[in-house]
């Protein structure tokens, strides 16, 4: 079995640094397995978040060799045995300890997004939606809230504009609501004034790190920016609700 050198960040808001652990990797193991091995055998109190270990809950986000990734979906066999692997917390959010950060910013932004405002049901009390119309919003519903897109976004990471900017996770939340066939609310002003969509300069970093391969920029942010430029036109709005206004990326 190959043995790896794991350089794991250990520390608190007061300070810290990388510590090296030598860990054996079994067949098919992922980075999270090695972190667990370190906990069980070398550093009991090594802090990390995780839940499902199957890429479905989005808890174990970290920066592995500097790249934002889920630890549970990063297989050890992509690394060379003789090269140390660094594991550090997602840098954009305040550190709590070791690999755990304070992601409450995201939960505050989530609350600000104006929720679904439902249209009336059909005369028989049912709601009918065609699959083709549901597809576009369903793409955004795949989000597992790992916040890797938030971590990598320059506006949040490098230009601490957290107050004025909700970030890619919430742009696709807004887009998902706007494309929801049953929704009747207009969030254009919210997107511009409070969520700060205008600050995004479409570098697509968010899309690149999304473990769910959601087309955050092409299918979520760009259509929203276009609509903001258009201003609100109720007729265009209704037509788009029914037919879709841009062909979505596959």
């Amino acid at each position, binding site marked *: 079995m190959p043995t790896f050198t794991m350089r794991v960040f250990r520390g*608190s808001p007061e300070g810290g640094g990388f510590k090296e652990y030598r860990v054996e990797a*079994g*067949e*098919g*193991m*992922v980075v999270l*397995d090695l972190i667990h091995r370190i*906990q*069980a055998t070398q550093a*009991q*109190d*090594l*802090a*990390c*978040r*995780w*839940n*499902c*270990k*199957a*890429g*479905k*809950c*989005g*808890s174990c986000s970290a920066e592995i060799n500097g790249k934002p990734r889920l630890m549970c*979906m990063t*297989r050890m066999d992509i690394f060379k045995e003789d090269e140390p692997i660094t594991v550090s917390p997602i840098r954009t959010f305040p550190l*709590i*300890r*070791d690999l*755990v950060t*304070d*992601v409450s910013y995201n*939960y505050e932004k*989530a*609350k600000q997004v104006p*929720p*679904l405002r*439902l249209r009336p049901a059909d005369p028989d009390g*049912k*709601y*009918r*939606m*065609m*699959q083709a119309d*549901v597809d576009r*919003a*369903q793409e955004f*519903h*795949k*989000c*597992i*809230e790992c916040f890797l897109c938030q971590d990598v976004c320059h506006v949040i990471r490098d230009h601490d504009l957290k107050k004025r900017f909700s970030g890619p996770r919430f742009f696709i*939340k807004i887009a998902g*609501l706007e494309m*929801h066939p*049953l*929704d009747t609310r207009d969030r254009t002003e919210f997107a511009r004034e409070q969520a700060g969509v205008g600050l995004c300069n479409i570098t697509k970093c968010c899309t690149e790190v999304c473990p769910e391969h959601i087309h955050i920029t092409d299918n979520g942010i760009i259509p929203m920016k276009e609509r903001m430029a258009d201003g609100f036109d109720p007729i265009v709005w209704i037509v788009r609700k029914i037919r879709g206004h841009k062909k979505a990326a596959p």
Partner: protein
Amino acid sequence: MATVEYETHEHDVLVIGAGGAGLRAAIEAADQGASVGLVCKSLLGKAHTVMAEGGIAAAMGNVYPEDNWQVHFRDTMRGGKMLNNWRMAQLHAQEAPDRVLELERYGALFDRTKDGLILQRDFGGHRYARLAHVGDRTGLEMIRTLQYHAIHQPIEVYMECKIERLLKDGDRVCGAFGYWRNTGKLVLFKARAVVLATGGIGKIWKITSNSWECTGDGVMLALEAGASLIDMECQQFHPTGMVWPPSVRGILVTEGVRGDGGTLKNNKGERFMFNNIPEYFKAETADNEEEGDRWYTDKKNNRRTADLLPRDEVARAINSEVKAGRGSPHGGVFLDIASRRPADYIRKRLPSMYHQFKELAGVDITKEPMEVGPTSHYMNGGIRVDADTTATAVPGLFAAGEVAGGLHGANRLGGNSLSDLVVFGRRAGLHAALHAKNVGGRLAVDSAQVESISRAILEPFTRSGNENPYSIQADLQDTMQSLVGIVRVEGELKDALKKIGALKERARRVRVEGGRTYNPAWHTALDLTSLLTVAEGVTTAALERKESRGGHTRNDYQKSDPEWGKVNVAVRLKDGTVQVSREPLPQMPDELKKLIEEKQ
């Protein structure tokens, strides 16, 4: 300890657990005007519900208009081998369609029929295509929908907070005490009613589909408060978990694979489920492959494929195939959809399965079969509750979702858990709020109780001893896996009890390194109490039930015994010791009995 430092919050209703049941309970209690606190061990939206895949069962009749609550009720009772609480099964079947439509009104986007209604898929043990779904990520859609609905209601959410003990004023519950995982500080919640929605116990086994959170906390809290458990011997082993590579062993492979046309094969290429149809399901199950395959498109003239027998039957059959030497290279069997459905269809219907196998196992499920085997999945039993109100035996304490027992009897049908969460989550929130209204006056908290709990919480830092909490947890998982697995026998169960006793001794000597800030060793040390007690409860109940039924299979009592079919095995904690007793099942009214007996 001279003075204990802790912060205090007060609510009418405190909901512990923020998966589907907890979220729905909190929403309902808030709708009733109660002040609501919602405590979750992880971040909001990460609870185990997020991993549910196949769908939510509800007799809406969108695909088969013949479907109705009566058929769903019958399927649920028969799937549970009649050990179910009939009233829960009735309420569940009647109310599930409304709860699904409610999720749609909250914003859930289910896959659609050609007419634009909610599409329903086939699943094991269900007579008609009944599961509303979103590809194979229905749980994610459900938790996100409830989460985003809940954050706009007057609900206070306490994330990464673990409750260690319920507080009582006389015989009734008056609050809960625990700690913040991120700071390690202690916290007191005063409450007029408490809803337990803490999920399952999968982490007492080594091979499980469950996340780290499923450590049986709620079961332990209820036992300590004086409530009883039922049907704990009937743990569900899901037939299809991943088996290779070892690091992903146990991760769930949705029953939707078979619902959408996949079939199980042994290493000879035989579709062995057709040789494993029990007498009980013969009348409604296709006895040949051709009929089984025709059934997918023509349910009127064909019987259900043997691949979709209830989970207990399929898990046992896979276990036997592997034992007989007809397994796959890594100790499972083959699940083949690649040769039976087009690649595009597979990717559209089962996107997470495609992704999961591709990324974690290097297997393309559109081109080759998967290797699968049983994995500990779901607590069919749980806290005994009143069917209509979800009230436990302890005044002010309610329970809903996986942590509550009764609905599923000895074996749960796939899809019935997500519906369970919203049907009984809503009822728990409603009745907890009503109870809170009726409890007037100030909430009195006994400082002696608080002090003793605080001491217990902090003890792992100061104890003399050198036991490692992770090793004890791993040893427990090995013990339960090898001695209290799918097939049980008296000698091994007794052996398991001895080993659990020894592990309890070791747990008293656990000492953890580090401080109180986000310290997983400390968290694991505290989880050991519930893990070990729950394991003892499961094993004791398994020893008591001397027959095979649903999720409980005894090698020394291989048949079902009608006498055992009349009782639940109940588990209680008395002076810190686990005790079992047999309690008669509630009597089903005649008009419902007729539904069960009716011919297909």
